[in-house]
């Protein structure tokens, strides 16, 4: 079974990088790229052979209530592919971008630790193990946000660290309460005991987890750290944070807890709907008024996370399909847009939209791919963003929630406004720019082109035939929450 290698490979490469990398970064680049590529291949392979089954891996052959289990179901496979894909393109992009800042192996070691943490959160079936991997990912994320070493970056990283620590405390308290009530940490075992628990206890535990994981996912009342952290980080790290980290630590952990452990209680589904709608509207409004390109994208992440949450909150199969698909497509186009922003920042030395102009001549690839990413995020057909938003809106109308559907459409228009502002000032302004300080190399360009092509192609996942194999098993994991417990415990 290849499940433990998703943790072992990035961890091994992180340790080896710190061991054999000398002053320069050649070994670090080689090792991390090899690790990233092999993770991508392994994750796609495991998705193909997995075939809708749930595989359980007992660490050291300790049986379920005693030892830690790793669980692989359809949702796990999809998330693993997503993380591997984004981290591989991000590494590809990093090589030139980080050399432009300095040549340090520490970046790559921290990057691999970040991947370790995320993969661990995805494949673990144990609640406390989930917390430990969350901390690994968060601690390396704090360091990576501050990587540039400027005052504002330290400030952003400190803010992120304080909020991250607060959220971790809340999650830990939630885990402690659940453990004291059920005497087990295996998620499937807890799910088995949930129906016999006091509803009042579940109410409070759910609230604590909502605040803790909501902070990690940057849902609206808990979003304050996100624009600082995601705009100050180096561009490939912004892409990782906005593209996958908030989804894995926030949304994925929420899915596992609220759907597979708590069994999708009505109350929290309604809270998801309300918080999601608030995030969509306020995140969209805040992103329109930004002049800093990366800040604009960061606020739009808050808005897009809102869509995922609304889709989950509907609770019908169509809504969950929309949420899962939006999670997938948002990771692709938001990472692409952050790569574009990073390339512009590298070439012009500024993130301020007012200081940019017409870039089509000097940076054709960046400007073209940013158009693709922009159209995809604002939901213009035929890109993947259009399809996922359409599914969510149809699901809302079918579930008799027209108000939320209207809010979702308004949010989409706000996103379109923000992206048009970015295109109008950042890439297609009046002043023609003829000189750039640094050329964008082939590695950065290929990372952007790869994601732009995927923006178009990932819509194909919904074609009949592919959809049954790729997305329907994932939806089944959430639509029938009790199934997870039965499959993991093997009865």
């Amino acid at each position, binding site marked *: 079974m290849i499940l*433990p290698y998703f943790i*072992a490979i990035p*961890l*091994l490469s992180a*340790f*080896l990088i*710190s*061991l054999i990398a000398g002053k320069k970064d050649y070994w670090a680049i080689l090792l991390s790229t090899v690790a990233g590529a092999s993770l991508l291949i392994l994750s796609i392979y495991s998705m193909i052979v997995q075939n809708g089954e749930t595989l359980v*891996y*007992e*660490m*050291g*052959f300790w049986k379920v209530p005693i030892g830690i289990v790793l669980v692989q179901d359809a949702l796990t496979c999809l998330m693993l592919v997503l993380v591997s894909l984004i981290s591989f393109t991000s590494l590809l992009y990093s090589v030139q971008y980080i050399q432009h800042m300095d040549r340090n192996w520490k970046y790559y070691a921290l990057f691999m630790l970040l991947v370790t943490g995320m993969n661990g959160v995805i494949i673990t079936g144990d609640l406390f193990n989930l917390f430990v991997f969350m901390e690994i990912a968060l601690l390396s994320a704090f360091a990576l946000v501050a990587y540039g070493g400027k005052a504002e970056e330290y400030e952003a990283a400190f803010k992120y660290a304080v909020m991250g620590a607060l959220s971790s405390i809340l999650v830990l308290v939630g885990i402690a309460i659940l453990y004291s009530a059920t005497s087990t940490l295996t998620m499937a075992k807890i799910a088995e005991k949930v129906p016999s628990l006091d509803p009042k206890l579940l109410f409070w535990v759910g609230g604590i987890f909502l605040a803790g994981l909501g902070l990690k996912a940057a849902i609206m009342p808990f979003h304050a750290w996100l624009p600082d952290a995601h705009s100050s980080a180096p561009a490939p790290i912004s892409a990782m944070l906005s593209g996958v980290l908030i989804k894995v630590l926030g949304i994925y952990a929420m899915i596992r807890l609220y759907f597979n452990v708590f069994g999708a209680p009505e109350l929290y589904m309604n809270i998801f709907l309300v918080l999601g709608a608030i995030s969509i509207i306020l995140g969209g409004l805040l992103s329109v008024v930004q002049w800093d390109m990366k800040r604009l994208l960061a606020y739009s992440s808050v808005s897009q996370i809102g869509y995922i949450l609304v889709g989950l909150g509907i609770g019908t199969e169509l809504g969950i399909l929309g949420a899962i698909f939006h999670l997938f497509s948002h990771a692709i186009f938001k990472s692409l847009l952050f790569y574009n922003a990073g390339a512009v920042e590298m070439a012009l030395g500024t993130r301020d939209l007012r200081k940019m102009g017409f870039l089509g001549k000097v940076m054709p690839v960046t400007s073209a791919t940013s158009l693709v990413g922009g159209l995809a995020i604002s939901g213009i057909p035929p890109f993947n963003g259009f399809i996922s938003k359409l599914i969510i809106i149809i699901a809302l109308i079918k579930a008799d929630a027209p108000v939320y559907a209207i809010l979702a459409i308004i949010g989409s228009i706000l996103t379109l406004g923000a992206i048009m502002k970015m295109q109008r000032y950042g890439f297609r302004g009046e002043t023609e720019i003829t000189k750039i300080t640094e050329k964008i190399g082939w590695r950065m360009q290929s990372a952007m082109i790869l994601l732009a092509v995927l923006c178009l192609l990932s819509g194909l996942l919904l074609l009949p035939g592919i959809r049954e194999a790729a997305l329907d098993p994932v939806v089944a994991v959430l639509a029938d929450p009790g199934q997870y417990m039965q499959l993991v415990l093997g009865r």
Partner: protein
Amino acid sequence: MNDPKNGMTLIVKTVTRVTVWLIVLYGIYLILHGHLTPGGGFGGGVILALAFLNIMLAYGRDATQKWLNIKFLEDIEAVSATLFLFMGILGIALGGRFLMNFLPKGTPHALFSAGTIPILNILIGIKVAMSLFLVVWVLAGLHEEEGGKK
């Protein structure tokens, strides 16, 4: 090492010189008996790190740097973490599961027993000792580095 300008007074230095080996011994004892008594790799590692920190506090940063090879400590840290991972992967190769026990279990309560657990405890102990010491070392040296740059 006995430079009166660096570190604390002669009394502290002398007491440190006598006691630091006891602290190291206690840390090693806790690590080696991790599978028998309370404590183990993490606790023993913390105590080992405290022994190093004791030297740093008593004799000052410069003297410690001369006495200890910091780069070597960093390497030991990475090596111990890598070896731990290799033990896990060896478990897959020899036992079928990650971190599976592949050594004979021996008699209970004997020092050499419990399969791979003592080895894992030693590796954890080294890793924790080096990590904790280096974290404090780097943080304590932060202002010097910044001052140097200016």
